[in-house]
């Protein structure tokens, strides 16, 4: 099980994957908005998305767990 964490504090702009979806290494799973910039959050490994812990509009802090892979 691998956790994908927020690289910096910001707001969830969009969620690009659904639970149960297969993703490949380097794929963006969601986008944060921070400092007026779009920050893609990518997975470093391929696998299946377990749970998505955040919704669009949520504030997240650096290090918060956004997505848990199966």
């Amino acid at each position: 099980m691998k956790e994908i964490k927020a690289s910096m504090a910001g707001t969830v702009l969009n969620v690009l994957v659904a639970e149960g979806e297969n993703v490949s290494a380097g794929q963006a799973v969601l986008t944060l908005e921070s400092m007026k910039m779009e920050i893609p959050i990518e997975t470093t490994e391929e696998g299946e998305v377990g749970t998505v812990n955040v919704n669009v509009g949520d504030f997240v802090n650096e290090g918060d767990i956004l997505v848990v892979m199966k």
Partner: protein
Amino acid sequence: MLKTINETLQETKARIEAGGAEKYHEKLKAQNKLFARKRLELLFDDGSYKVEDGKFANNQADGLPADGVVTAIGKVNGQTVCVMANDSTVKAGSWGARTVEKIIRIQETAMRLKVPMFYLVDSAGARITDQIEMFPNRRGAGKIFYNQVKMSGMVPQVCVLFGPSAAGGAYIPAFCDTVIMVDQNASMYLGSPRMAEKVIGEKVTLEEMGGARMHCSVSGCGDVLAHNEEEAIESARTYLSYFPSNYKHKPEKVEAVIPKEGRNLSEIVPENQNVPFDMYEFIDGLVDEGSFYEMKKLFAPEMVTGFARIDGKVVGIVANQPKVKGGVLFVDSADKAAKFITLCDAFSIPLLFLADVPGFMIGTKVESAGIIRHGAKLIAAMSDVTVPKISVVVRKAYGAGLYAMAGPAFEPDCCIALPTAQIAVMGPEAAVNAVYSNKINEIEDPKERMKYVQEKHQEYKEHIDIYKLASEMIVDEIVSADDLRKELIDRYSMYETKEMTFSERKHPVYPV
């Protein structure tokens, strides 16, 4: 039959050159490590080292050939270099009195010859049994670090870390310009996991606490993470090719190579300031193919630092990476760039700043981590360089981000804007919000409100239009991204004679 004096000499030499006992050589193999003398052969041109001193150190003692360190002089890419290499088959590469004296002497040689110094480190640390002879005295281990500080900026100092560098020994890499670490084997720590458990009660693995990957991605103590020893040594040879032998010389020019084939640079940079792009692709299109040598790739990746060649000439690149954390400057990114800039300036490597930066990060987390003083450190390092310094505003340069990336006030030789450049205290969204927030909130109809905000955005964008800024001579030139390489080739060539002294004072009071 009596041995001849020559036979005695040859036998003694052979015994010393074989290093420690066979079982320790077996252990090396099991760890995917190479023998110290093999490492030297890989480092030097044609596998040969020309000169070795102190080979017979401690030869009368049992099991201490060369006292656990090889000190030699040889050639790397034709450049003379001095090297020390711990031999971990001899008492785990630990330091006795003669080990320390040998390291000090090879450092002194490097200083006299004004040539680069390599530290091939693989050592368990001090031999406690020898502490009085090697630790506190005038020519004890402290002198190694004193010498390193003295040599810093005089000659390149490179550490290749193959195994542990423990306690005091961990300062050898710390004082080097650059540390190349072998994944899984290299480690750096003040107290071992065993000591950590005893003294502070922490249970942790060596890899987690002081492993190569951690140091190259989290602590910032490592610069390059190599898969194996051969790769690490090859990387060290490549690294040195960007450097002159000492601060009095300039890096060597090599034959020019055209950039890697790819998209036009103008296609890479999106006009929308908020959308990420990959700065690596931009750099690839700008520099000679295959010439980019990245420093601290895994650490603070929102800032890219590395050496490259443009038209065969070495430059040091400091670039924001909008693909990671929006290219925002953090504590670690500031720290990373500050050290890199200092390194380039020390050895006459011209600097190229590629700015696409929304500014320094804000919020409790970074403020309490001291982002202001780390930002000040970067700005100080960037300010007092005397090498040719070119600032290119690739896209946005907001707030102190403009300053950190060698903006106009910091005396770059020129500040070039691409047509996508936007220079401002802050971006349009933030600025309109800051100035008109009361008014925006007073408008009740959402459509009217949106219209008002968009009008103000438009006004603001016109206010900071790059042609307007060029008209005010804030930037020196506007060039198409597609012409940037040619522009840089011409400018660096014109700036070659640059000679300046930043200040006559002793040194600044560094904001560290």
